[in-house]
C-alpha cells in the first residue's frame, strides 16, 4: 500500500469510526455487548449476597467448620453423630409427617433439617426419625470451575449472538447505510480508489466492533472475577491460565469481528435486505456441527470454537443433538484456525472489492 492510499484510508477511518461508534441506530449493539457484563455483575452480586449470608451462618455455628467437616456427613448417620461432628446447627427446622400405612392407620415420621456453613459452602442435612436421610452440599465455585460457565456464555451467547449481530449491524451498514442515507456519492466523488475506500470502511468497522466487543470482553472478565477473593483471583489469573484464557478470549473476539465483519461487508453490498443473508448465516453457523467436515470449514464459528481455551463439558444426560452443538468434535489447531478465519475474511474482502467497483449511485434526488 503506498503512502497516498494509507493517507486516504486514515481519512476514511476518521470519518467512519466516529460515525459508526456513535450511530444512534447502533445503540442496540451496545446493549447486546453489555448483556453478558450485566449477567456477570448480577452473578457477582448474587454470589456476594450468598457468601455474606454463608459467612454470617458460619459465625453463628457452635464450631468453626471446615470443608472437610462438611463432607464427612453421610447418609444413615445418627443425629447425635452429626451433632458431635458439626455441633449445634445455626439454622434448624423440623416438621412431622403423617404417612399412611394402611386403611385408617398412619405413621408419624419426624423430619429435621440442619443448615451448616463453613463460609464458603452450605450443607443441608435432612433427618428422618433422627437418621440422616439426605445430604446436600452447595459450594460457591472457585474461578477455575466458574470459567466453564464463562466459556459457555462466551461461546453460545457472546460469539454466536452478540458479536454476530453486532458485526451484522455495523458492517452491513458501512455501504448499505450510505445508500439508505443517500450520502454514498460523498465518497464516490472523491479521488479515492473504490478499493481503498472499502478498506478504510472495513478497518473503521473493525476498530469500532473491536472497541465495543473487546471492551465488553474485558469488562466481562472483570465482572466474572469481581466476587472472588484476591487470593482466588491471583491463583486463577497467574497459576491457573486465567490471564492466558482472557487474552485468548480477546483474540478470538477480534478474529470473530474480522470474520463476521468481512462476511457482512460483502453481504451488505450484494443484498438489499439484510434479513435474508443474516438468517442464512445464522442457520449455517448454527448447523455447522452437523455438516460434513469439508462444509464445516466454510464457516467462521468452526474456527472460533477451535480457538476457545475452555471446552464446555457435555452432561451425560444431554440429548445427542444438543451435545453435538455444545461439543467441538473435530477442533483444528490454533494456527490452522487463525489461517482459516483470515482466509474466509480475505475471500469476502476480495468479493467486496469487486462489488464496490461495480456499485452505482442509483438513489434519486426525490
Amino acid at each position, binding site marked *: 500500500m503506498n503512502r497516498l492510499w494509507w493517507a486516504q484510508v486514515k481519512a476514511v477511518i476518521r470519518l467512519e469510526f466516529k460515525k459508526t461508534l456513535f450511530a444512534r441506530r447502533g445503540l442496540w449493539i451496545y446493549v447486546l455487548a453489555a448483556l453478558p457484563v450485566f449477567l456477570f455483575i448480577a452473578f457477582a452480586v448474587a454470589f456476594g449476597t450468598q457468601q455474606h449470608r454463608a459467612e454470617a451462618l458460619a459465625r453463628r455455628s457452635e464450631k468453626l467448620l471446615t470443608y472437610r467437616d462438611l463432607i464427612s456427613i453421610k447418609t444413615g448417620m445418627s443425629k447425635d453423630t452429626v451433632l458431635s461432628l458439626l455441633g449445634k446447627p445455626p439454622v434448624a427446622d423440623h416438621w412431622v409427617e403423617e404417612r399412611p400405612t394402611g386403611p385408617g392407620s398412619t405413621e408419624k415420621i419426624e423430619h429435621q433439617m440442619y443448615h451448616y456453613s463453613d463460609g464458603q459452602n452450605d450443607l443441608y442435612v435432612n433427618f428422618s426419625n433422627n437418621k440422616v436421610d439426605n445430604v446436600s452440599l452447595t459450594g460457591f465455585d472457585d474461578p477455575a470451575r466458574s470459567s466453564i460457565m464463562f466459556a459457555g456464555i462466551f461461546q453460545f451467547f457472546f460469539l454466536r449472538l452478540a458479536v454476530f449481530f453486532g458485526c451484522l449491524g455495523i458492517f452491513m451498514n458501512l455501504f448499505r447505510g450510505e445508500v439508505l442515507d443517500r450520502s454514498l*456519492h460523498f465518497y*464516490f466523488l472523491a*479521488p479515492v480508489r473504490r478499493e481503498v475506500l472499502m478498506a478504510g470502511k472495513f478497518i473503521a468497522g473493525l476498530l469500532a466492533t473491536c472497541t465495543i466487543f473487546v471492551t465488553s470482553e474485558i469488562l466481562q472478565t472483570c465482572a466474572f472475577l469481581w466476587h472472588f477473593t484476591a487470593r482466588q483471583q491471583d491463583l486463577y489469573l497467574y497459576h491457573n491460565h486465567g490471564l492466558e484464557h482472557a487474552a485468548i478470549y480477546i483474540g478470538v473476539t477480534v478474529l470473530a469481528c474480522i470474520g463476521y465483519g468481512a462476511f457482512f461487508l460483502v453481504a451488505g453490498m450484494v443484498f438489499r435486505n439484510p434479513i435474508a443473508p443474516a438468517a442464512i448465516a445464522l442457520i449455517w453457523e448454527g448447523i455447522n456441527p452437523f455438516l460434513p467436515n469439508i462444509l464445516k470449514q466454510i464457516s467462521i464459528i468452526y474456527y472460533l470454537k477451535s480457538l476457545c481455551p475452555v471446552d464446555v463439558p457435555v452432561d451425560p444426560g444431554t440429548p445427542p443433538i444438543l451435545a453435538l452443538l455444545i461439543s467441538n468434535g473435530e477442533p483444528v489447531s490454533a494456527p490452522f484456525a487463525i489461517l482459516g478465519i483470515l482466509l474466509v475474511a480475505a475471500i469476502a474482502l476480495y468479493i467486496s472489492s469487486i462489488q464496490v467497483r461495480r456499485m452505482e449511485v442509483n438513489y434519486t*434526488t426525490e
Partner: protein
Amino acid sequence: MNDRITFEDVSKFYGEILGVNRVNLSIPPGITSLVGPNGSGKTTLMNLMTGLVRPSRGQIQVLGYRTDDSENLFKIVGYSTQFDAFPKGLTGFEFLYSYLRLSGQDSSMCERLAWRAIERVNLTEAAHRKVASYSKGMRQRIRLSQALAHDPKVLVLDEPLNGLDPLARAEMIALFRAAAAEGCYVIISSHILHEVDIISDQVVMLSNGYVVAEGNIQSVRGEIQEHPTQIMIRCTRPRELAAKMLESNYAIEISIHKDEHGLLLKTRDTDRFYLAMNGMAMNGIEIESIAPADDDALSVYEYLIGNEEVAR
C-alpha cells in the same frame, strides 16, 4: 482526444427504463449547458460523466480519463450533485475538510482549501454550523464549494442555481464564467431555458434520453430549416417597410408591433434578407435595431422538441 469530454455511442438503461440512448458527444472547454425537461436524461449524463453510474453500452472519457478511474478522475473533476444528503453530523467546514482529506492531502493544505472554497460561495459565517441546519440555498452553495474546492479542470454542476437568491445566482454565474475563461470545462444542467441563454457557450439539448441537438445556440437555430427565422425590427415606418419586404419576397410573414414602432418578420433566407435590409435603410426608413427573435434556447428547444416538453 485528451482535451475533450467524449461520449461514444453511450446508452444507459435502468432495468427496462431508458436513461440515455446512443449519445455521441465531444464537449470542448467553456460552459456547456445540458438542456431538457425533467426526466430527459441530464442527470444521467452527468452521473455517467462522473462514474456514479456505468454505461450499459459505449465509452466515456473525461480529458483522457476513464470514468471508472475515480482516483485520477476526481483530481480533475468536481461534481455538484442534486442529491440533498450529507454525511451526518458535519458542519459546513468539516464537510469540505473531510472531503479534501479523502484526496490524501495533508491537514493544513485541506484546511486552507476548505476555507478558500467556503469564502468563494460566501458561507464563511455559517461554516461552523451543522449542514443539517442549512437552508436550501446554503446547502446548494456548500455543494458548489465541494465541487470547486480542489480547483478542478472539469466542473459538473447539476441544476447549480436551484434555491439560490438572485444575488447569489449572479455571483455563481460570474464564478462559472471566470472558470470557463480560465479554460475549464463547465457542464451545467438546467431546465430553466432563459438561464441557459445567459450562461452557455454551447448547449446539448436532450429529450427522452436522446440528444436532439448540440453546439452553439445560434448555429443550432440556423440548422433548423422547417421553422423560418423570426426577426424583430424596430423602425419609424413599420407598415411601409413591411410592404417593401413583402414585395421583395424575402419575408413570408410579417406582423406589425402594437406600438407601431416595429415589426416581426419571418424569413427563410436570412442572408439575402439582411442584404435587402441594407438597401431599404438607404431609402429613408429609419431603422433603430434589427435582432433575431428566436435564436434563444427556449425557441430552439420549442422548435426541436415542441411546446409540451418545454411546458413540463
